[in-house]
């Protein structure tokens, strides 16, 4: 298939609605980075994690599952007919994992220390395993 530029206009109503939502999110993002995560969420010491963990981590990683499966079909099983979808699937997977990294960066309190799990290992931690997997797989996609 030869790639061709899209002909219809870019700012369709759907794109506009999503842009407004994204701009709204940017405002809250700014507040979070100025006044802390307590200013934009209802988190307290009894509920340290919000529902969005389920959305940003679970949904974005689920996005990547398609990439894994397509890559397994195309490159591991060598089903050549699937090659057309392997690249877009891998791109989506990479975007998904990158979004996890960004979302986590917003969520954790000391975002400037996000590289710490690379050198400070705690093999007992389930979260450490998640972190290392995200980093390794991100590198594979790239």
């Amino acid at each position, binding site marked *: 298939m030869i790639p061709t530029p899209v002909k219809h206009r870019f700012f369709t109503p759907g794109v506009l609605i999503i842009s407004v939502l994204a701009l709204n999110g940017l405002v809250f993002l700014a507040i979070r980075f*100025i006044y802390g995560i307590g200013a934009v969420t209802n988190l307290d*010491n009894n509920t340290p994690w919000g529902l969005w963990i389920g959305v940003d981590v679970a949904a974005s990683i689920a996005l990547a599952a398609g990439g894994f499966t397509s*890559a397994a079909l195309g490159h591991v*099983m060598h089903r050549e007919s699937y090659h057309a979808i392997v690249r877009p699937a891998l791109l989506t997977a990479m975007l998904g994992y990158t979004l996890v990294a960004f979302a986590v960066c917003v969520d954790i309190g000391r975002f400037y220390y996000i590289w710490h799990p690379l050198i400070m*290992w705690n093999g*007992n931690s389930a979260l450490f395993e998640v972190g290392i997997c995200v980093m390794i797989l991100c590198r594979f996609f790239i």
Partner: protein
Amino acid sequence: MLHCERPACVSACIVGALSKLEDGSVVWDDSKCIGCRYCMVACQFQIPTYDYNKSIDPHIRKCDLCYDRRKDGKLPACVDICTNEVLLFGKRTELLRIAKNRIKRKSDVYVDHIYGEQEIGGISWMYLATKNFDKLKMPTLGVNPAPRTSESIQHGIFAYFVPPVTLYALLGIIMWITKRSKEEDIEDSHEPKPDKKEEEL
């Protein structure tokens, strides 16, 4: 407070910022913590707290049994200031002996239960009470340490890296077989595909 013998927060921390010291206290390391608050999720007593209204350098705050004071040989501040010896500080075995003595001496006052002697593998901060502990809103917990389940799973699926290596070896074998059968099918070999493949665990 509490300072479990097998702390769930220490097991859960992604970077090992929390540690159980020789003297029994569970302390937090400012230079390691990334602020993910997983320790707060892991803790069964909601002990660690967090600076929610700070954007830069929020701390996880919990009792460290006055680490700085004890370095100078002083007692923790709460124990030092208490006039009636409601709080005692000392070796665990010694404290347990005193607690059992108190229960025996005043069996009409105290409930015959030392909260923290057995709970989740033992707690270094133990309580005596005159009412049942569930009436005091203390969680009723078993004797198994909290991290036991998660750690056995974690150590199981990565035991000496055998399961992951086996999985990738298996995938490699599948690749090799399917590629060979493909080449037998089509004689004109097309250019080799880039060697990027991954399968989620």
